[in-house]
């Protein structure tokens, strides 16, 4: 198993975000984690590369227990995990080229020429050829997301974590990003976890979809299984019904577990 999140609990002050979340992602698989805004999807992602530590439970990546890794090993593992941020998080004082080189320099082992070639390849993979010398402020929202993806794939990670890669984009750009996610899987063979609340994207890019609600995964299944789900929470989310929206944004009591059926 490539990524395994095991019974993770996480709270920020009195606000409990994750309440025993478990999820496994197999090698080469693309799994989408869907759920309401504020449900803890990004928090989940940040546990995988050790940006956050769980209060309880643990996370394994490549058989390594992430929260227990010493600093050096954690940094070594991070070079195997590409992270695509929701708002790209490009270094705004650097050009696209310099942004992409950051990971390459850290990983090491490439000559100047090889690095330049790798930057070109990565930009070509996201259809941003020739954008090397632009600054992030000179890019559109979609271009920034693609540049963020190019930065994440440049050092050829084994895993890619996408944090809402299509949020705030128009439908055409969303389709472009979805195709890129699929292309990353086909051409680089990466294992991916995609955070999204866009069901159309989730259906098109995922091998499996996991629904997060009240800090736990209430159902995991193929896109077809999710479409045909009889779980009340999943149905309400997929159909965009408003009755659960209030529950999702209201702090829950300690024993407030998921009300739907867990598969």
């Amino acid at each position, binding site marked *: 198993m490539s990524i395994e999140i095991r019974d993770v609990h996480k709270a920020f002050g009195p606000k409990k975000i994750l309440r025993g979340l478990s999820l496994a992602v197999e090698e080469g698989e693309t799994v989408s984690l869907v759920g309401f805004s504020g449900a803890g999807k990004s928090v989940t992602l*940040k546990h995988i*590369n050790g*940006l956050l530590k769980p209060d309880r439970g643990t996370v394994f990546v490549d058989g390594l227990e992430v929260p227990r890794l010493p600093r050096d090993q954690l940094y070594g593992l*991070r070079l195997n995990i590409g992270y695509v*941020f929701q708002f790209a998080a490009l270094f*705004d004082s650097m050009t696209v080229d310099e942004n992409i080189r950051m990971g390459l320099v850290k990983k090491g082992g490439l000559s100047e020429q090889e690095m330049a070639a790798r930057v070109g390849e990565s930009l070509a993979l996201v259809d941003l050829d020739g954008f090397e010398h632009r600054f992030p402020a000179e890019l559109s929202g979609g271009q920034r997301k693609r540049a963020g993806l190019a930065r994440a794939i440049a*050092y050829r990670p084994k895993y890619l974590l996408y944090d809402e890669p299509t949020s705030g984009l128009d439908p055409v750009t969303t389709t472009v990003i979805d195709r890129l996610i699929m292309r990353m899987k086909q051409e680089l063979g990466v294992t991916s976890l995609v955070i999204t609340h866009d069901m159309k994207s989730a259906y098109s890019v995922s091998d499996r979809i996991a629904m997060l609600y009240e800090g736990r995964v209430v159902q995991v299944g193929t896109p077809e299984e999710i479409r045909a789900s009889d779980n009340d929470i999943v149905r309400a989310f997929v159909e965009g019904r408003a009755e659960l929206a209030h529950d999702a944004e209201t702090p829950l009591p300690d024993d407030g577990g998921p009300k739907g059926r867990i598969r």
Partner: protein
Amino acid sequence: MDLNRSLTSLGAATLRMFGGLGTFSRFTGDSFRAIGNVRTWVPLLVGQMRRLGVDSLPIALFLAMFTGIVLALQASYTFTGAIPLYFVGTLVEKTMVLELGPVLTGLALSGRIGANIAAELGTMRVSEQIDALETMAYDPIAYLVVPRVVAGFLMFPIIVIFADVVAVLFGLITSMALLHMSPQTFIRGARLFYRHFDLVYSIIKGFSFGLVITLIGCYQGFNTRGGAEGVGISTTRAVVVAGMLILVLDAFWAATILK
């Protein structure tokens, strides 16, 4: 009921204060630990020395120039008829080198450097650029904090020495041009009570103020929460806290070294 509420508020304020001190101590400890990561921060040092040091010289020298002028005029006004005028040189040299050179420069640069660092790192924090560094296996403290703190520590004493020299020089020019003193008279006064230790004392203050301004700026930037408003709060805090600490350190050095 009121007593209960007062005690609760007092307890909460105490917890906040000690919690903040604990976080700052840990941040300082992490920064010293990250100094060992030389491959990350050394290549960035020269750029920061230029940005925080060389680029700060104009404002520091502007301040020193006018302070020197005013000190010479005020000394002459105070001494007229009672104390020999060559004491104008003494007062300008002693006041600038021992006190105003480092402290005024420190306060002015806590605004320029401290605010700049807090705003920059704060913006990086809220736009997830610091998280992005971590995802690419960079230690953000070694990459962002150490080069700034080391640059501030090394460059600040140099700025202070320049400020001392420029202030005394403009005190001399003012004395010659407006008070009709000969340069020999001013220099005689300046040398009368001058000790090399005055300069050492000024440099010690420079090192400590440079450290405090950059460290507080980085700490506030790193701990920024929220969006633009959070960046504004961090920037203000960086200037206010660094300014207060400069005054506290100034008193500390006077009490421990000059007594």
